[in-house]
């Protein structure tokens, strides 16, 4: 299958809500990226988190298998350190092969849940 997508992606509006309502883990408030790898080889993904008041943190290493989709909650990234909740951040995602990256946020701090999603910015 054809490789589609880009090598470099970014988004700047990251902020994981702290409050959650409802059963966990389904209803944990979270930021998430969905990475689509249409190619025949594994995509080695590096994630870098940028903050307003400190140097970037990363590389968070993730692999997406050939011809697979992988959803990654930013909340769950701990290596090299946990991404703090309720703190503004931006994110740069690089891949060794073209992939498609979508960003989404679920905020369940109140019972009327909200979900938003957008494409990350294809930077290359």
């Amino acid at each position, binding site marked *: 299958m054809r490789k589609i997508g880009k090598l470099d992606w970014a988004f700047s509006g990251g902020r994981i809500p702290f409050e959650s309502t409802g059963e*966990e*883990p389904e209803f944990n408030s979270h930021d998430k990226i969905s990475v689509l790898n249409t190619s025949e080889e594994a995509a080695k993904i590096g994630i870098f988190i940028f903050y307003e008041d400190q140097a970037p943190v990363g590389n968070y290493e993730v692999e997406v298998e050939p011809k697979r989709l992988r959803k990654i909650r930013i909340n769950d990234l*701990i290596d*090299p350190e*946990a991404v*703090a909740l309720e703190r503004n951040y931006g994110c740069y995602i690089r891949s060794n092969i073209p992939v498609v990256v979508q960003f989404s946020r679920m905020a369940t701090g109140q019972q009327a849940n909200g979900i938003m999603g957008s494409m990350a910015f294809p930077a290359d």
Partner: protein
Amino acid sequence: MEVFKNWSGSMSFKPGQIIALESEEQLCELVKKATSEGKKVRVAGAGHSSSPLVHTKDYLLSLKHFRGVEDPDLKTKRATVPAGMTVKEAGKDLYRYGLAMHNTGDVDVQTLAGAIGTGTHGTGKELPNLSAMLYGLRMINGKGEIVEINRENDPETMQALQVSMGSCGIFLKMRLQLEPAYQLYRKEYCVSFKDCMQNFEELKKNRNFDFYWYPRTDLCKIRIMNTDKEKMPHISYGSPELEREGPSHEILPRSRDLKFDEMEYVLPQEKAMECFYEVRKQVKEKWRRTVAWRLLIRTIKKDDALISPMSGRESVTISLHHNAGLRFWDYFKAIEPLFLKYGGRPHWGKKHTLKAGTLKELYPHWDRFQKIRKKFDPESTFLTPYMNELFNFEK
């Protein structure tokens, strides 16, 4: 001066001298010299502990030349392990002779002597901590003399030496009570918190069982190990994550690339889960904003060592983790009072804030231990300022 740094990097200091001597005679001479100079001696181990047990401005010893399993005896199931060997090295070497330790912790990079001396443990409600293997000892006391002792010729003293953090002497060789080498089967599953709690009593019946709780998802990972004598359970409510089998020394530990700091408390089993629920509540309400590391819950059989954290109590341990290099004390210090509220005793080799005044109240045989300790080390050669804070609250 050379800097000594522990595994996580959270403790570093400059000892007066780091020395790796090659013979027992040289070690005896060094202890005599230190005692006559009023200096302190500590053994560095592998540097896995994150409490400052080995911190000294004077002599820090490495026993790296003391290796190689000796005198394996399949009939009595005993073998002698020199004090410079790591848990991993000992496990591998013992296996060659058809012997194995009854259990190890989740990591095997520590020296076995350090793991024994701090009451380090694995998991399994019928399995005591690693110090329970200690049948006999060859060590150097604070006068620089070689002492040999075992459970048959002096069981009461062995109860003191078993978990003593190098405060009575320098372990040279440990005669261990072992098991014939055995295969283990390991399975891990991701399960909901509710299912983990509902099945906790049943899961505890496995030879080895523990679970991680993940603060940011409220999910758990259960880990089960059995020999071929026990039946592996079918976990219908979990999604399989891992399945392995092999010799025990290869299956018990898991590799750890990511470094962390840790606080672990040992709780009486009847109060432990109530404590865990309270800890979980506080972590969810406050700490998961910055902390994503999982908590580990393990079960341990009681032992009779005088100051073992599991002494006289069937136990459950709860450990907190945070990435090495990040601020961990705010989190650990906020949770520690909950552990104490439920009668917790700290793991000697991990982070805690307790001093002698509090510790004494946690151990019924505290005074007996101190009396024996002084007999072996009358000039306090092994009592550094930190060790003194742990043991001598009146000073």
